């Protein structure tokens, strides 16, 4: 399987935070969701990938090229969307296209125009008059319009209404259809990732907690809800994380089928990515 992005042992130290030995890959044709609470290290990871901050150690390979000697030809194949608008507020989408078509040799003006229509972006209005959602849509249109092979989005769906978000998620799914394009999307809106991601990378306090196929997570992980007596009876090895809410104990288990057989009296339900993240971050570990 070819990899669009491979990160190995990425480390970056700050005085109050450390990105600690991060490793994960994005197989071609897949969407990888990078999740974690605010300050977990998602943006630091994305910024390291893009060379916006200098890593202390580790290696990053994009489309087979080491980012230490990242050339323009590789950058041409990477589309980037940050949270908010990335363009001068004085520009209009028309002027923006005049800027970007001189920069990207693969710029597709007719595709850009069709994206502006599809996403209802006014072409002649100044960006400073746009809402946050509109700015995000423009950034996404600009990223798509040069036909990147790898799309990197940092909190790109935040600020969008559910309808537009859904349209954009559909665009992401369409983008990876041919198995040659890939997406890394960092987000704290895990419901979006549940819809589109193939893999979930969960980062917490600068460390990777897990990097797993999304379907595997949703199929296998489970939430056991029980009282104090039952909690005491649960083997500590079966507990990934737990937390107490009033008189109820919530236990995250890695294999809900196995747990259901082992603890037939306990109520074990399927979990969402949000619940997994929440229990890892706010719960206690055995």
């Amino acid at each position, binding site marked *: 399987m070819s990899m669009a992005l491979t990160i190995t042992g990425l480390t970056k130290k700050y005085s109050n935070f450390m990105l600690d030995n991060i490793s994960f890959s994005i197989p071609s044709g897949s969407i990888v969701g990078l999740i974690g609470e605010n300050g977990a290290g998602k943006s630091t990871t994305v910024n390291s990938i*893009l060379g916006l901050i200098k890593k202390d150690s580790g290696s990053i390979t994009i489309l087979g090229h080491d980012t230490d000697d990242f050339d323009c030809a590789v950058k*041409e194949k990477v589309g980037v969307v940050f949270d908010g608008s990335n363009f001068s507020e004085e520009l209009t989408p028309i002027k923006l296209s005049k*800027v970007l078509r001189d920069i990207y040799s693969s710029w597709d003006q007719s595709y850009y125009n069709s994206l502006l229509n599809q996403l209802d972006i006014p072409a002649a209005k100044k960006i400073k008059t746009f809402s946050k959602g509109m700015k995000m849509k423009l950034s996404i249109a600009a990223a798509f319009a040069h036909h990147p092979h790898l799309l990197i989005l940092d909190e790109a769906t935040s600020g969008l209404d559910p309808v537009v978000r859904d349209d954009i998620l559909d665009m992401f799914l369409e983008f990876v259809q041919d198995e040659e394009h890939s997406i890394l999307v960092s987000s704290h809106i895990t419901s979006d990732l549940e819809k589109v991601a193939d893999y979930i990378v969960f980062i917490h306090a600068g460390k990777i907690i897990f990097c797993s196929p999304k379907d595997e997570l949703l199929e296998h992980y489970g939430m056991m809800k029980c009282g104090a007596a039952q909690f005491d009876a649960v083997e500590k090895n079966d507990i990934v994380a737990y937390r107490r809410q009033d008189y109820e104990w919530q236990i995250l288990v890695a294999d809900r089928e196995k747990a259901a057989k082992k603890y037939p009296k306990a109520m074990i339900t399927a979990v969402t990515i949000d619940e997994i993240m929440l229990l890892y971050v706010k719960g206690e570990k055995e």
Partner: protein
Amino acid sequence: MKGLIRNNFYSMENNIKISFVIALFLAVVSFFVKQEGFIQMIIAMQLSIFIVNVGTSLHADVVSKWNKFELTLPVKSNDIMKAKYISFAVLILLGIIMGSITAVYAYAANGFSNARSICYGYEFGLTLSAAMAGIMYPLMLKIGTEKNEIIMIVSAIAAVGLRALLSAVLTPLTGEMNMQHPLVGIVSAIVAAVIFIGSYFVSVKIYRHKEFS
């Protein structure tokens, strides 16, 4: 690089228009003012009025996070800086063009009688604009654009100080400390141009070591 230059001018567009209006107003004022001292100051102001947009340019980049985004574009970091300095050079050129309106009118009205005054205006304007841009941009790149106005004032003072310093240094050749001496004017303009060019290399170095979180 063409796209980067285009972006620089789009983001400064409104301010450049204001600079044009001011420079044009100064040109009209020069039609009615006959004193040589005023003519030279008007030309100097017209030459340097556009360069104040250097701060606007960087501030617009920071506010929109374009300065972070442009590093992800398929362009070299050297080219990003080159595009900036080419844009600044064009701003100086716009100032020269606007100053020339005043100069041409002054020549048409009075012939070569005030040629020295016109030359002084050009020398002073070029010194001010090239040195200001050369000092201002790397400082803003390093410190940030929050102290935009202070950096601009400091750069302007430094540019004037440069001329005063050179007039002192050149005293053995000019006979006295005279800021209006032709030699001081020419040397100041040359030194300012060197500062502007040197500033590009300093900015490239600062930019390469800059981190965007």
